[in-house]
């Protein structure tokens, strides 16, 4: 079942909601910069983000 989840972009650090079904592997892109380096935001991901200065485009 798809549910609304927050994804974030590893290029511009944009956070955005997506309908996410873990069983479904599909192409995703960042609505702001168009990059495909996007992933689900997990507590671990958020922690790493907070710990380090993020590389960022735009």
């Amino acid at each position, binding site marked *: 079942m798809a549910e609304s989840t927050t994804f974030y972009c*590893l290029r511009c650090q944009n956070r955005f909601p997506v309908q996410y079904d873990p069983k479904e592997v599909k192409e995703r892109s960042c609505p702001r910069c168009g990059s495909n380096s996007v992933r689900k935001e997990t507590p671990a991901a958020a922690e790493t983000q907070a710990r380090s200065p993020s590389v960022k485009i735009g």
Partner: protein
Amino acid sequence: MMDAGRHPKVELLTDSEVEEISGFVGNFRARIRRKARYVDEKACTSCGECAKVCPVVVPDEYQQGLSSRRAIYLPFPQAVPSSYALNMSDCLGVRPIACGKCVEVCDKKCIDLDMEDRFLDIEIGTIVVATGLDVYDPRAQDEYGYTRFENVITSMEFERLICAGGPTGGHLIRPSDRKTPKRIGFVQCVGSRAPARAAPYCSNVCCMNTVKDTLLISEHDPDAVSHVFYTDMRAFGKGFEDLYRRSREAGVRYVRGLPGHVKQDPKTGDVRVTVENTLTGDLERYEVDLLVLSVGLVPKKNGGNKVKELLALSSTSDGFLLEAHPKLKPVDAPTRGVYFAGCVEAPKDVKDSVTQASAAAARAGALLAAGRVKIEAITAEIEREGCNFCGRCARVCPYHAITESDKKRGLYPVVIQAACAGCGTCAAECPNDTITMRHFTDLQLLGQVDAILEEKPMEKVVAFACNWCSYAGGDTCGTSRLQYPPSVRLIRTMCSGRVDEDFVWHAFEKGAPLVLVSGCHFSDCHYISAVTWTQQRVEKIWIQMEKLGMRPERLQLDWISAAEGQKFARVMRQMDELLKQITPEEVEQSKKAVAEFLRQKREKLEKRKAKAAEGAGALAAAALEKS
């Protein structure tokens, strides 16, 4: 059909079902169930005496249920073979025989009620899948009142009513009172272009079918008036615009808007249609004698999925079968030696179906005439040593080119060379590194990583690019004279699926500040679904990077098509910008962390390999003992 039936080199197996298919291009084996027909098709002369005495009356499917047939019947006038068939689910019963009248009257004695299904095993070189489609059931769109109102019919039913071979001999009548309708309405896009309620796609044929029907009506009865309620008329084929113009000139009224409300007058049987005319913005009411719902085309339900499973085919999100490549191989299935014809691949009209069928026959014929297939030079090879029968390779191969392994029986997985397309996904996914990709070996690719990072690694981006899309996108970028920074160094693989996670780790271990994995967009993947494994692998690496205290941003992913030269240049500029934000300190730190991680990984791999070798030794000993 008759020509095919008469052709000395065509064997038509009607009323048959494919039960099993195995093998690969040039060497398929199929098991076919030939359903019992209960009539000897060679002896039957279609005299029809049997049907005359059969007491069972059921709706005739061919005539859309508008007339009836018997339990023993000729499916339709031009049926090949021209022989009667007994539908056992309609018959009163044969065990014990409940009626048997047909047997009694058949002079030729061609009815055999004891007939049983037979199985046929055949060897075939190529396969053309032409299993067709179904039509949309408009009951789901209840506002049109199909089946609630007698005078609301589908375009398929209309087809039978106006056909000379139909139940009324081509005399158009309406179901409620058998009167000839003078005012006919057509509703377009029933079941099509409605993502929320039915199919999201355009069914391709309905507009022109309606245009043709309106012309037929005006030929049958010049006084009849047709109204077509549409979203927009699509007449893009050869001669179609002309047909559409002729229909308008014949007085057919085209109303832009779909009915919101349909009701049949219980006394007169007339159908009242309320529609918002989107050209004028007015709410208009029409009264017609007969309303025809132009139903869309949907993927075949019965049988369609079975064929898909048997041939390991995939389908697009709309349910039609996925071709190997939408532009370069539009009639080929991703499984080599399998081709598509007709609506199994997408909704299409007769002309397009014939064109595709001819192309499929030519593709299959060329392959058969050659008598051998050219296989890829770049294929995978599995070394038994180290294989622990995990089965991952067979699971990930998009072509089902790897045989299933079985530890108990000592069956190692084997790559069927004729079926392997060379994506390299298996080699990248094998946890024991026992798969070698010819011409794109680990050694070759790691060597390129080493060469890139040998000097001034902090100024380099290691970018893996797939041959067909992102690398070709780089070519487009170059031929368009677009510039991209020299810091990006490309390593070509056939598919991004080949990019083993070890390549990425190796690059980080050697001091790469930034790695990019790029490949085709999912819909363009040259290797069916290999790109999906790339994405999953990269996601896995991101998680591991976090565990090692690395910023996942240092591994980037992008899908770039061959036509996206501008995107290629933009992504590479972004890589250069990202590169400048990575510090030598963090690279040094991660080098150590990755080196330790890889050391542990290698240790585990060695242990697994040693265990696998032990297992292999035991298997060999058991086999020796058995022999």
